[in-house]
């Protein structure tokens, strides 16, 4: 009998319904992580220009200047800030902290996601402040 495969696929990482913010952070964490690892490999290549002497270094650096690269650098910085701060939250919750303990459940149920939400909000505020600070440093001053 024929069947229709209802698997969401990669689209399911991004949107699958009206869930809390945590499920979207899952995707953001993923995408920022993938961006950072690709950049890291690039970064290892680019910075190795220094063993070929001052001229080679200056040439590489001049290649990587300009407003587009500045913006790219900021996006990477933002990705790193998000990945680090959200990763800290994940380390805390995945080691069973700030998510409550098992017990008798009474309706309306308060899930572990709801219990870690204050931590999540705190982390989001930290991320916002860091993004703002580094944004000011990057573009305004």
């Amino acid at each position, binding site marked *: 009998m024929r069947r*229709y495969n209802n698997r969401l696929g990669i689209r399911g990482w991004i949107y*699958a*319904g009206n869930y809390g913010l945590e499920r979207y952070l899952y995707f953001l964490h993923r995408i920022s992580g993938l961006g950072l690892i690709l950049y890291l490999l690039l970064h290892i290549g680019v910075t190795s220009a220094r063993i070929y002497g001052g001229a080679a270094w200056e040439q590489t650096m001049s290649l990587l200047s300009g407003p587009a690269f500045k913006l790219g650098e900021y996006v990477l910085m933002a990705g790193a800030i998000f990945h680090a701060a959200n990763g800290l939250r994940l380390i805390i919750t995945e080691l069973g902290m700030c998510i409550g303990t098992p017990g*008798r459940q009474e309706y309306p149920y308060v899930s572990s996601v709801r219990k870690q939400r204050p931590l999540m909000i705190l982390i989001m505020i930290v991320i916002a402040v860091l993004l703002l600070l580094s944004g000011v440093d990057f573009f305004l001053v």
Partner: protein
Amino acid sequence: MAVFKIQRYDPEKDGRPYFQTYEVPVEQGMSILDCLFYIKERLDATLSFRASCRMGICGSCAMYINGLPRLACETQVTSLATDTIEVRPLPNYEVIKDLVVDLAPLFEKHQRVRPWIIPYDPVELDRPTKEYHQSPAELERYLQFAYCLKCGLCLAACPTVATDQEFIGPQALAQAFRYNSDTRDGGDTERMAAVDTLHGLWRCHMAGACAEVCPKGVDPALAIQLMKREAVFGKKKGRARLADPPHAVKLLPGILKAPEPTVKRSEGEI
């Protein structure tokens, strides 16, 4: 009147699912399942869906209602606060017909974690001499996870299940933790071997969607994180004490005597 947009799919006729619209006169107190029965009885008898107990115990009527996987019987129409209700089969499964999905992967993964009590002492299990004693605190360590209906909502919500067919999934992991936390059980090592794989425990990244949708407050996300914690820091597990059966102990004053068993055991029978 509420408008129901329901995803239809007949494997014998349709190549792709499509939406069909029905108008249902809703009143206060009707659940989505009541409305589906209304449609099936009065408007369109070809509509297929699974349902049984109508009271959130069997877990048959799991479907995707207005952007969240929910039990149709536990979802009040008025609680959705809208007149357009979209009902679709659960994501991340194969659709057999209309709202009926194939839950076989769920049960197969559930079996993989050995969801039963693996006793320390098989002889004691075969020929019990005493009763297992468990304190209320020891019970509450796993009771929450024992309420799992196997409805499959959590797998429909999980972003990892969305891509990873082999991921063992929140339901099975929560059940692994439920039996691991039972003081009568000694099967931690076996279960850990079943979940400590590339597609096991470590593919959960605390998106928390499973905990949000669970209709019984089982909270698979909590179970999974606590299991990780035990895998990292180790755990101290008490063993259930064997207690004398009630005939050998003196009743406290004020406690009624249990009724005599209705079926008498013959001599020598276990």
